[in-house]
């Protein structure tokens, strides 16, 4: 994975010094909270329900054991001994003090980590496919491109006071494992006439008005990409709405002027920007790509012993095929039944660091589904890895099953929330605790958001749950039929909302309808798409 050179290190070190100065000036009263807020947001620092919350960046979800151990250390030293992995592949700490923040960032900088632009009206963490470098279906590893974009977007002087946040995802396969079409800009790397380039989608997003990004350009060459993105961002910075924060994302601009007009404006701006010479030479992408060379694979192809039935179940559910013979992709579930989705204790984080170092060429990934991946595990090591995970309560064999819930922190933690999301996730997982029942239901992506900002990606859930405030009481709306994969779709609200127990019952009824009507190996979402809402509505409300 990427290693900083002196320049990269100097940039994060300078940022620490700058933010420390800004914090000191805030505490001394030289700047108001209103003036300080965008500055702290651009360093990932929120003022949340209980304390400050710090969102540390994990660029395109990739990190090594040394960095993972630092995250555990931060949790122990400055927080309450745990962290929360997010739907943008980052990690959040919920109990941070402002007076510690600069020290935390200084410690993070010693292992090439930061909290740069993980919030604010600027370009956020570039996300990517959690199986990058390991998946057989990728055209290339998307992460060098993500790293190129990370550097281009970091401290971008023109695009740090955008109308609203800006999220970019990069994938390199036709299977979309990063919800790419639901980003402000989504890039799918493709080959054309032997050359690598990006298919550019602009204007996706969730929140109040979910939209699927239309294709704006079918192919942008590598050495045009930064100029092209600069043009995309400049048009947005100039013409994105600033009158209403709920209509300020680029998806609204594209919806209002139309994709064709946006494409035309970008093309015009691109023709101009291209003359400025801001694109690095291909040698820079090559330099970065060298850090992402395949690991020194050395394991012969050996199927693991399936004698232990629990191990076999985990193998079948959580372990995915690898492009390299003899290897496998391990998914570590952070969704124990009844637990808090995406949370890990510092001890668990340390265990995962150790396993990465021992069994995965020292590399881990964070997924946008709030799980962790060990991307390069030799099949001969799977059993030992599983045993260690089991001992650390990290071996739930529920990847993509109904209890593998994506849930935002919700009203338990977040000052934006209208309702709690975690208790709903816990109740649903507990209702379906029987693993045979879960496996019978099969792939069922359930996503819960505690408010319309949709950080739980509920629009993209096969089953989505949205928490709302109904006259001061928590209420939950149910949506069906969403997907963040390549079969991308926005879920539809099925009817009036429910209270907490009511929504759990409704989910259960929906799964019963699915089981009654499914054909062949249809998933829940396939059956719903085939039979429509009526049978489900009848069972739930009838």
């Amino acid at each position, binding site marked *: 994975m990427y290693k900083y050179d002196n320049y990269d290190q100097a940039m994060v070190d300078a940022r620490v010094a700058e933010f420390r100065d800004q914090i000191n000036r805030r505490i001394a009263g030289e700047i108001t*909270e209103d003036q300080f807020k965008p500055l702290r947001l651009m360093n990932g620092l929120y003022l949340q*329900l*209980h*304390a400050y919350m710090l969102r540390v960046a994990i660029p395109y979800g990739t990190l090594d054991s040394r960095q993972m151990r630092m995250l555990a250390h931060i949790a122990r030293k400055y927080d309450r001994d745990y962290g929360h992995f997010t739907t943008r592949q980052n990690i959040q700490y919920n109990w941070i003090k402002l007076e510690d923040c600069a020290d935390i960032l200084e410690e993070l900088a010693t292992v090439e980590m930061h909290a740069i632009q993980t919030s604010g009206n600027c370009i956020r963490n570039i996300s990517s496919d959690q199986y990058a470098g390991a998946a057989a279906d990728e055209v290339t590893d998307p992460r060098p491109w993500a790293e190129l974009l990370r550097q281009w977007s970091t401290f971008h002087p023109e695009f740090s006071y955008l109308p609203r946040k800006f999220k970019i995802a990069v994938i390199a396969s036709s299977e979309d494992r990063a919800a790419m079409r639901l980003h402000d800009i989504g890039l799918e790397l493709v080959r054309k006439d032997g050359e690598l380039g990006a298919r550019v989608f602009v204007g996706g997003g969730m929140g109040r008005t979910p939209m699927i990004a239309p294709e704006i350009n079918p192919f942008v060459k590598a050495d045009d990409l930064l100029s092209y993105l600069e043009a995309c961002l400049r048009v947005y910075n100039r013409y994105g709405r600033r009158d209403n924060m709920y209509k300020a994302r680029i998806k609204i601009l594209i919806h209002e002027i139309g994709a064709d007009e946006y494409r035309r404006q970008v093309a015009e701006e691109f023709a101009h920007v291209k003359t400025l010479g801001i694109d690095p030479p291909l040698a820079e992408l090559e330099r970065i790509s060298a850090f992402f060379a395949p690991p020194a694979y050395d394991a012969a192809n050996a199927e693991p012993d399936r004698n232990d039935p629990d191990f076999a179940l985990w193998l079948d559910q959580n372990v995915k095929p690898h492009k390299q013979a003899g290897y496998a992709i391990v998914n570590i579930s952070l969704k124990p039944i009844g637990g808090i989705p995406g949370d890990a204790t510092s001890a668990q984080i340390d265990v995962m660091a150790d396993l990465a170092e021992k069994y995965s060429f020292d590399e881990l990934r964070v997924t946008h589904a709030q799980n962790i991946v060990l991307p390069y595990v030799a099949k001969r090591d799977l059993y030992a890895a599983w045993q260690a995970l089991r001992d650390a309560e990290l071996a739930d064999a529920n990847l993509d099953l109904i209890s593998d819930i994506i849930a935002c922190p919700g*009203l*338990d933690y977040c*000052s934006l929330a209208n309702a*709690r999301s*975690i208790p709903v996730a816990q109740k649903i997982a507990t209702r379906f605790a029987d693993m045979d029942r879960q496996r019978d239901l099969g792939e069922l992506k359930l996503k819960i958001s505690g408010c319309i900002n949709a950080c739980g990606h509920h629009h993209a859930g096969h089953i989505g749950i949205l928490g709302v405030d109904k006259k001061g009481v928590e209420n939950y709306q149910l949506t069906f039929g969403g997907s963040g994969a390549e079969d991308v779709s926005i879920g539809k609200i099925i009817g009036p909302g429910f209270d907490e127990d009511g929504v759990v019952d409704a989910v259960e009824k929906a799964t019963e309808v699915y089981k009654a009507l499914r054909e062949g190996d249809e998933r829940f979402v396939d059956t719903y798409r085939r039979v429509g809402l009526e049978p489900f509505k009848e069972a739930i409300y009838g």
Partner: protein
Amino acid sequence: MKLLTGNDLVSGAVTWWTGNGWSIHVEDAADVGEHGEAILHAEEGARRVNAPYIIDALPTENGPRPAHIKDRIRALGPTVRTDLTLKPADPTAGDWII
């Protein structure tokens, strides 16, 4: 009754105006009546509180109970991690939130 609440600038902790200072315990919160805005501006200007606002609450025998569930969660802590709340040893503390 009206309560004045916010966060401590430096620690980030949730705080409640007691009448002559700030406490992390909602039981200590005072009714600011008509004077909330004036106190808010003075305290915020002096940086003794950050991001303050005024809320409705009902007086109870155990102290003020914020009208909105969000502020009750702020007052106690996350309902899903009772060990991290202000009353970790009290298993019924969360009932007060709902």
